[in-house]
């Protein structure tokens, strides 16, 4: 047993220190520019969402991934289309890479009737999973942290059982590593040798809780040893390094080497959501990360100096992104809101049953559901967001 533990530890060390050819060396020039496109799209789309939020067109909260674009984009870029990914709230970039469109994201945030979840779920909580020939392979997350790890253990268990050449990737934050679901999911996947890559995005804060109050562990890849699986660690603000670490893990999982752990070191520059004033962050910390460690600035510098890209090539990407986000915004704003009665259908696979006897013979007679829906919930009538929604509909 001692020999096995030390060999795992060595693999962890190798991954940290690198050595040999990096997977990103094999990326084409187009692929390297594509990485820039996805990061720029993520940031521009979120900036647009901020504007819409201030106009009260975003119905719920707004969750930014400012400063984490490289870790989201670079890690997901290591997947194939047939693979399945489960994102976190700060993985807008990963979802875009996997095929989610800006207009879907905007409609979700604006609770539109033709949003991917028809107004049932918020922000980037939506997915598209099933037949790999027709779906893009990302799974709608839920808010209780860590729960997606056991779910993805099961998704990848099905790949193994059916002998499919597919890998799963699940994102968790530093906070989720404290949950029982994280432990149970990763342990289950490890024991079953599921082709699952668990990516821990260590962005220093879980809501307001700093990492040192989350765990006494020095680093999260140390946990890999406890589960008997390989671990990889990378600078999460370096998009190529992020790709390299995740690609190694994904390749190993695809080769049948079982569950893999990746830790990406990054920093959350915005609050948990837009309402959070970040009063708990030490003075100067955010500014220092913004000035010295912005993932897009770093990649732009590398593209233009080291990788031989011309500034005009990057400007063309910026123009394309702006045009795409503009068009998506117009389309999302033009969409209608869901019909209230749509709330009643789809809880079960069975076709909606005849209205229960209890309503038919009992209390229902007073107010028909359609009347109630038209009337809305009176208590919210004074709410500014509802007002803007009504006036928008009128217009």
């Amino acid at each position, binding site marked *: 047993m001692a020999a096995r533990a030390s060999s795992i530890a060595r693999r962890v060390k190798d991954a940290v220190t690198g050595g040999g050819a990096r997977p990103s060396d094999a990326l084409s020039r187009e692929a390297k520019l594509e990485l820039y496109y996805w990061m720029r799209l993520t940031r521009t789309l979120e900036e647009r969402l901020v504007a819409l939020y201030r106009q009260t067109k975003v119905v719920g909260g707004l969750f930014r991934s400012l400063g984490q674009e490289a870790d989201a984009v670079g890690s997901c870029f290591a997947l194939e289309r047939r693979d399945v990914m489960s994102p976190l709230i700060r993985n807008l970039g990963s979802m875009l890479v996997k095929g989610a469109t800006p207009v879907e994201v905007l409609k979700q945030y604006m609770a539109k009737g033709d949003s991917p*979840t028809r107004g*049932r*779920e918020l922000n980037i*909580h*939506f*997915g598209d*999973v*099933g037949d790999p020939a027709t779906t893009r392979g990302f*799974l*709608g997350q*839920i*808010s*209780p942290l860590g*729960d997606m*790890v*056991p*779910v*993805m*253990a*099961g*998704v*990848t*268990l*099905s*790949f193994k*059982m059916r002998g499919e050449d597919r890998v799963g990737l699940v994102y968790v934050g530093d906070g989720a590593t404290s949950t*029982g*679901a994280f432990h*149970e*999911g990763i*342990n*289950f*996947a490890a*024991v*079953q040798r599921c082709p699952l890559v668990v990516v821990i995005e260590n962005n220093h804060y879980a809501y307001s809780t700093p990492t040192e109050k989350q765990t006494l562990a020095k680093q999260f890849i140390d946990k890999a040893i406890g589960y008997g699986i390989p671990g990889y660690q990378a600078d999460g603000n370096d998009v190529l390094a992020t790709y390299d670490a995740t690609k190694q893990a994904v390749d190993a999982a695809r080769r049948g080497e079982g569950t893999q752990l990746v830790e990406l070191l990054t920093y959350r520059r915005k609050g948990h959501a837009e309402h959070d004033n970040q009063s708990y962050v030490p003075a100067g910390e955010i500014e220092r990360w913004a000035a010295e460690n912005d993932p897009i600035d770093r990649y732009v510098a590398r593209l233009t100096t080291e990788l031989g890209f011309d500034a005009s090539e990057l400007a063309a990407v910026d123009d394309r992104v702006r045009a795409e986000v503009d068009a998506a915004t117009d389309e999302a704003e033009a969409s209608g809101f869901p019909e209230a009665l749509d709330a009643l259908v*789809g*809880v*079960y*696979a*069975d076709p909606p*049953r005849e209205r*229960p*006897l*209890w309503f038919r*013979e*009992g*209390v229902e007679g007073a107010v028909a559901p359609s009347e109630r829906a038209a009337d809305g919930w009176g208590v919210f009538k004074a709410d500014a967001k509802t007002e803007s929604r009504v006036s928008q509909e009128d217009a």
Partner: protein
Amino acid sequence: MTTEITYLEAIREALFEEMARDENVFCLGEDIGAFGGAFKVTEGLLAKYGEARVIDTPISEIGIVGAAAGAAHMGMRPVVEMQFIDFIANAYDILTNYVATARYRAFLPCPMVVRGPSGGYVRGGPFHSQNPEAGFIHTPGLKVVYPSTAEDAKGLMKAAIRDDDCVLFFEHKYLYRRIKGVMPAGDHVVPIGKARVAREGTDVSIITYAAATWKALEAAEQLQAEDGLSVEVIDLRTLAPLDDEAIVATVKKTNRVLVLHEDTRTGGIAGEITARISETCFEWLDAPVLRVTAHDIPLPYAPQLEDFVLPQTPDVVRAVRRLAAY
């Protein structure tokens, strides 16, 4: 052939038949493989279907249920064993927050079964005797089944495995080896959501399920013999969705209703059934709806204590007499 098999063997037979019928069906749980499960429900499955389809898991209810959900999304049909249904509390978050909402919020199919030994009367103490169905009945998106006969145990298990939603399948461990039945020939499937008239009657109705059904039948016999009362017994079989039609029909027939269950009283499903009856059938009632349930007490171990806390036949007899005299 009219061979009788036990309630437990009926469930096992359903698992064997469904795994043979559909290669996407697989079982996972603690000690279900070589050991055959704590109660031996899965005995023989490993030998027939192998480790890939009969998966011994870590002690990990969240991991097991979550993995089942993920596999179900991808077209598999997992059947999870909770070693004792008491331990389902560990998986409450992922069942209620994740599994129950998957279809509604994300259009994700979640065809899976979570099954396990439930209930008391076996001196199992606080952690091997619970009836946690009420918490799940309250969660839209889950179906809840709790059979009382061997025939239903098999037929409902087959229906649960074929159902396109998550079905929580409660098995009463007191009935495992005490109840026998002759399985109907062929593909015996009992539809989810349909109650059973366990005994016809005209004076008083007892609405019940699981092991309490047998207490109700015992009480009905005694009341017939001693009081000349004709007691109807409705075995719900499925608790979510409730068979509203069957409940209303028996209320209109006898006009006197007792709701009986082994679960604790406060927040139990008897309260829900009582409310539905009072909302819609008030004018059909000749007496208030009564409840006979367990006391609101964690289930104790000593026979003297357990027998006191759980509903017994004399409790049912007393309540029915009160209803009849009203």
